[in-house]
């Protein structure tokens, strides 16, 4: 057991910082203010991810067979920490690297891999995930959007909501349910994943004004949209296995605590400059926020360590996610109380952090679902019916 970084990992982090310092423009904070789904950040992501690819830093974690460098899990995570603490200049494309690409590599056909992976590794693909619906948020299995089998594919009808990046996405990682017919599969096994071209006839995207930035959440309506069978990911009945794999990658792929730690460092700098740091109450509250960040860091590192050693996934991801939510909100509460001017136009980075923090317990499924998972799978408490 040890908690340090190797010389190679230290050098890797320094190189990434150097690249980010060189590649991020002077007005990056203004760009980041608008959120990862905004037009400004999406536009920036094309140039940035393309340049990152040229540096060999966009998909180094991918297998060499798919254009990556077979980099280890920890090096990948160091990259994630650094870009997240810089405000995630990869914009919506972080998702491609974290889980869309890995899911396609694992479950996609050769044709799907040939079609979808090159744009991702060149930094010119925007995806959205068609998961949540008006009546199915964290309870994903109750989704109602239908995918009716027809000759050569499916006809999709229904609505998705809270869909990040849909306004600019090329492709939707869409979950839909094959309508039940007698003798057919139902429940989770009736769900299919359709890699849906967002330019298809019958798709309408409506942006939802929100507290968390421009372009981050949308409603997406599907009106008898045809999706070729060749765009179905995995076999019918395999979708839940794929979704579980995807969510495992998605939920711990974002080191949110690192951005919170960075914004906390920045806040202390401002408090010092304003002559307010000597106040023992300020130091106490800053120290408490720091504790939450570091607790979240250790729990997330515990997951990354397990992945680096190829241990089977366990409920620890849920434990870590709860800690991350507490850290984001603890730092946000500190900032809002002691530096409210940051939300009054004086600090775009603080506002960007605020907008991410208030969504931390909701995005990727309500954090209460994680508490359920901890209770059932980590503590092995009885289920609602009383059975373990």
């Amino acid at each position, binding site marked *: 057991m040890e*908690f340090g970084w190797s010389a190679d990992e230290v050098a890797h982090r320094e190189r990434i910082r150097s690249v980010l310092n060189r590649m991020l423009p002077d007005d990056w904070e203004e760009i980041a203010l608008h959120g990862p789904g905004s037009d400004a950040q999406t536009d920036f992501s094309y140039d940035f991810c393309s340049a990152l690819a040229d540096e060999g830093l966009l998909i180094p974690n991918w297998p060499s067979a798919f254009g990556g460098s077979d980099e280890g899990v920890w090096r990948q995570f160091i990259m994630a920490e650094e870009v997240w603490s810089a405000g995630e200049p990869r914009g919506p494309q972080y998702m491609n690297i974290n889980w869309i690409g890995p899911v396609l590599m694992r479950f996609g056909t050769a044709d799907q891999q040939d079609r979808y992976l090159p744009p991702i590794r060149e930094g010119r693909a925007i995806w959205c995930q068609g998961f949540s619906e008006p009546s199915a948020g964290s309870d994903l299995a109750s989704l109602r959007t239908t995918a009716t089998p027809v000759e050569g594919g499916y006809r999709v009808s229904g609505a998705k909501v809270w869909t990040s990046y849909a306004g600019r996405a090329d492709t939707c990682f869409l979950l839909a349910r094959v309508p039940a017919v007698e003798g057919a599969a139902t429940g989770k096994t009736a769900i299919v994943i359709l890699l849906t071209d967002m330019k298809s006839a019958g798709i309408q995207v409506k942006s939802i004004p929100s507290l968390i930035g421009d372009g981050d959440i949308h409603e997406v309506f599907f009106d008898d949209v045809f999706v070729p069978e060749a765009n179905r990911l995995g076999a019918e009945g395999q979708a839940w296995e794929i979704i579980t794999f995807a969510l495992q990658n998605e939920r711990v792929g974002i080191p949110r605590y690192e951005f919170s730690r960075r914004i906390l460092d920045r806040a202390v700098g401002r408090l*010092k400059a304003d002559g307010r740091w000597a106040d023992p109450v300020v*130091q106490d509250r800053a120290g408490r926020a720091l504790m939450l960040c570091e607790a979240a860091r250790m729990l997330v590192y515990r997951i990354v360590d397990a992945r680096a050693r190829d241990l089977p996934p366990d409920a620890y991801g849920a434990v870590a996610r709860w800690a991350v939510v507490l850290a984001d909100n603890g730092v946000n509460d500190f900032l809002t109380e002691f530096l409210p001017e940051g939300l009054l136009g004086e600090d775009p980075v603080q506002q960007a952090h605020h907008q991410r923090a208030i969504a931390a317990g909701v995005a990727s499924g309500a954090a209460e679902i994680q508490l359920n998972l901890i*209770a059932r799978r980590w503590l092995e408490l009885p289920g609602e019916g009383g059975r373990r």
Partner: protein
Amino acid sequence: MNFSLNEDQTSLLTGLDQLLAAEAPPAPTEPVFTEYAHGLDAVLSESGFLDIAREDGFGLLDAALIVERLARLPQTVEAASTAIIAPALGLEPGLRPVALTSGNPLRAARYLPMAKMLIVDRGDDALILSVDPARVAPVETLFAYPYGRLTEVDEGAGTVFADVALLRRVWRIALAAEAAGCMASAVATVVEHVSTRQAFGRPLGAFQAIQHRLAMAAETTESAKWLAFRAAWSGRDDDAAIAAGFVQARIPQFTFDLHQFSGAMGLTLEYPLHYWTYRLRALVGELGGSTGQARAAAVAAWGDAA
């Protein structure tokens, strides 16, 4: 970065578990606030486990692993000060158990009734005193540690230890490791209770209101453990203050919830929960409590000056 035990650590904890299987006394059968495991104390002293940080190739992390494991026992035995603090301060081995207090040497101190040594954090320095059992009065307390206070003290007879920052750093590590072990057993005890105790036709643990707060207690326990181990590994001021402050800040809600889920049974001495929760509550106020640690962490991370 590696969260798994190395071969030496695995051997160490396997050996400790074997020793505990043979030597740890059964859980107290009489309702008591606390029970000091004198026999186990003697065996541990002889075994060398508590001196592991003094061995070549081992250090404070290995000592913290042992302290965390011993803190899970229902009985108490002084380990943290002997295994973590004394070696870090360069004190001679063998003079134990070790008691700790802050400020006035006459204040009540954990383990003083059986201690051979008392370390007093006096603010600007520390005073290390040999303990004369004839000058120790036991203190009755709800806390699940044996407490005592000196009836008189000759400060001139003690040894002054100047590096009080070092003392506080390793005290924080010791506190964090001990608290993490207490939390692990407290959660396990309550999980067992709510999994078997039926109410309204199903186990208490099937109710989501209880599940969610126990899940939060589990997160607290895991965070406390890894922060303590990291602090023991790094020996850094900020890591130590973060580890101790985190656990002290969480103890009030943690202990409230675990007693709440145990109902009136949790208020009795025949139910073992208090062995851990009333050690945790004793640890809440040490070294200035979570506020003291939070400020120390902030100063260590960002400095005190503008």
